[in-house]
């Protein structure tokens, strides 16, 4: 019966996150609902209020209230010295943010999308990530780089790339990717409080989505630990790892009791949770939006093969975006991003319920 109910839910549009799905999650007194946008805004507000060294910078974060309205109201509340509208130079304002962090301030630098962070990547990697090590602990960089990451809808190749794998391969950085409002609040607060440079990958399509949050989550001292994944749903047939928007898709399965792990933290990766889960289910599918080669899934697969090889009953499968720059046309875009159906088929393959894929070149 439950399987049929789940099948009906599957028929709904996969892009919409169903509030009804919340019954599958275990939250304590899930009374209030807040959007991811509100979660991020309130996290920034509370951290700025608690620590006068925290300040925001980015294009349009002040007067315009934020390109995606994440920083709404903050200029009015904290003034132009703590919410800086920057000129258009990612390399410039990232360098300045890093410099301010060198001296002890705690900047939160917004990239309009992480695609634009490539213009600043030298500062992120060479000036921020490596500084503590290269200076032998004399220069610490308590900075947060945040902004939307990955595919949105109809924005084409230069606005849709996922940078999780790029940043997560660099020692010295921490890389987080929240899924829902609880993640957004807890992880952003943790990122701002963390003395190391943190790359905080949000998702534009999730900003407007509402999720239930408990009172504990709404408390200003709420914080999630960095480096711990969350088992969004327990299961026994196959482990599915996902992060950000993809975590939403995985909650609708038909007849397969998938254990869905919301990674939350790409670096450090919670290998112990992932491996413990695989040892329980014996099968693994990794899901991500980004390009397949050298992706997050590749790292998870290697980790599981290194630590839990004898527990695997089926080869690990990676589901990722197509190995092409993101096309614009809606039909092509849909084909370039993993859909629920792709994951369902992969799960079935892992559980031997369909003909395995023929060998591909």
């Amino acid at each position: 019966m439950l399987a049929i109910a789940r099948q009906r839910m599957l028929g709904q549009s996969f892009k919409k996150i169903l509030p009804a799905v919340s019954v599958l999650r275990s939250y304590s007194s899930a009374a209030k609902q807040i959007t991811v946008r509100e979660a991020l805004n309130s996290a920034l507000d509370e951290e700025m209020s608690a620590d006068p060294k925290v300040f925001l910078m980015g294009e349009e974060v002040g007067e315009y209230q934020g390109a995606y309205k994440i920083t709404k109201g903050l200029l009015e509340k904290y003034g132009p010295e703590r919410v800086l509208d920057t000129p258009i130079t990612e390399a410039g304002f990232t360098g300045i943010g890093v410099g301010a962090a060198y001296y002890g301030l705690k900047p939160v630098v917004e990239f309009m999308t992480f695609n634009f962070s490539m213009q600043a990547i030298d500062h992120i990697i060479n000036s921020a990530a490596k500084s503590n090590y290269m200076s032998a602990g004399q220069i610490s960089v308590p900075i947060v780089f945040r902004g939307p990451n990955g595919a949105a809808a109809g924005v084409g190749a230069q606005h849709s790339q996922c940078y999780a794998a790029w940043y997560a391969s660099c020692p010295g950085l921490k890389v987080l990717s929240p899924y829902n409002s609880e993640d957004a609040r807890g992880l952003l607060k943790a990122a701002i409080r963390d003395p190391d440079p943190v790359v905080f990958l949000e998702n534009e399509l999730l900003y407007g989505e509402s999720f239930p949050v408990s009172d504990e989550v709404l408390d200003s001292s709420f914080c999630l630990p960095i480096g711990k994944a969350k088992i969004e749903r327990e299961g026994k047939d196959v482990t599915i790892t996902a992060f950000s928007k993809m975590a939403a898709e995985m909650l609708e399965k038909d007849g397969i009791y998938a254990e869905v792990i919301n990674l939350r933290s790409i670096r450090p990766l919670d290998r112990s949770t992932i491996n413990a889960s695989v040892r329980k289910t014996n099968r693994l599918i990794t899901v991500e939006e980004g390009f397949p080669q050298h992706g997050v899934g590749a790292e998870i697969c290697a980790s599981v093969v290194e630590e839990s090889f004898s527990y695997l009953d089926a080869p690990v499968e990676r589901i990722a975006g197509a190995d092409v720059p993101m096309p614009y046309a809606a039909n092509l875009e849909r084909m370039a991003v993993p859909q629920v159906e792709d994951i369902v088929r992969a799960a079935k393959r892992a559980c031997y319920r369909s003909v395995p894929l023929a060998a591909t070149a």
Partner: protein
Amino acid sequence: MANWLRISSRTVANHIKKRMNKEFMGGAVHVNQSSGLWWGLNRGGPVSDRNRRHMDPLAWNRATLLCVQRFKTTLAEKQHDSFLSSDSDDDNQSVDFPGGKVSYTSEMSFISESSQTRVPCYRVLEDDGDLISDCDFQQVSKEDAVKMYSNMVTLQIMDNIFYEAQRQGRISFYLTSAGEEAISIASAAALSEQDIILPQYREPGVLLWRGFTLQEFADQCFGNKADYGKGRQMPIHYGSKKHNFFTISSPIATQLPQAAGIAYSLKMDNKKACVVSYIGDGGTSEGDFHAGLNFAAVMEAPVIFFCRNNGWAISTNVSEQFRSDGIVVKGRAYGIRSIRVDGNDALAVYSAVSAAREMAINEQRPILIEALTYRVGHHSTSDDSTKYRQLDEIVYWKKARNPVNRFRNWVQNIGWWSEQQETQLRNSVRKQLLEAIQVAEKTEKPPLSELFTDVYDHPPSNLEEQEKHLRETVTRHPKDYPSDISV
């Protein structure tokens, strides 16, 4: 003769100092083509089209000489309009645009790509070390002057010996400040210990001035366990928190926007200190140069951008680097007060940096200093500059335009230095350096644990595991590892 010189330069100096203190921040424009201090203050008002056509800086300055007003940041915007309304010549009706009022003209004229004369260079000493008569400069005490000179000699000897050490294979890399000793020592002397330094890589003189010992320099170059950098970086990438000298980072010009960011932090903290960031002529081509200067100006941050224009960026001559009149003219493009100074004249550098520091801190604004000099040495030990420039050019600058010799002549003529002290100093420094190198060479390399520390604030579990694993492997297979790995 010497006596007369001493008296006159001191009285001149005192007289100048009084004048400078009075009109420092103000509008005094001293026009002296060859040796005077040239403060081309930005009046902020529009340039009338007639002036624009001629672009005669002298003519313009005479006009500004007449308006001696204290130049305050907060009044800048207002001065804009009041200057405009009081100026009644030319067809001066104004038109409004975002960014302010601007006058218009129906005569079409383009601002020339260069002015007829180059921006003059401020100097105080002749090439032979004689003080130029009737000049503006910040007097130096005997103690400071002797320390400056000694440091310049020490830097020169240190460069020679470390360079040789690299050639002997004892260290892997080195780069010298040959020809630029006055820049790093004199600029450091004009600053306070609280001012924060973001170097490029050719300014170890600043660290030397602040008390970094020869042993500390050697330890970093050898990457041993006494190195403050824990053996993490190539030689010459010094860094010292206690000396307010940020660890050198290789990518060019990244320190410029960082400097603006740090200056912004100082501003928020209301500190009576500034940031000084160094860059070469080549580095000004980087995008970060634009971002750093533009931002510092917009944020009104107390930072001094010090450009060492030594003529060469490895093999790229300045004529291939930019088509502007050097770097000093770029300051105006960002709304930054700028000066061009003779980088081989220690007193001129000292004066310019002193003045810049006062302005940066008291007026909360960035300043740009372009120091003209010459890179006597090769770019680094990985370079042989005779491949792209004439040997006699190098020899000329090394002999005839040497900043160390020039300053020595001045301190000797004043009676603050002698030949005997010279010999003593050189012998002593040489001896200390050779000892320092011997000690550094024999000192152990950093322990294995330092491979994994400082990646993050707290070591993460995966690195702790890796370290444990590595220790076990080294212990179990000692023959596979060098004997100097202390586990």
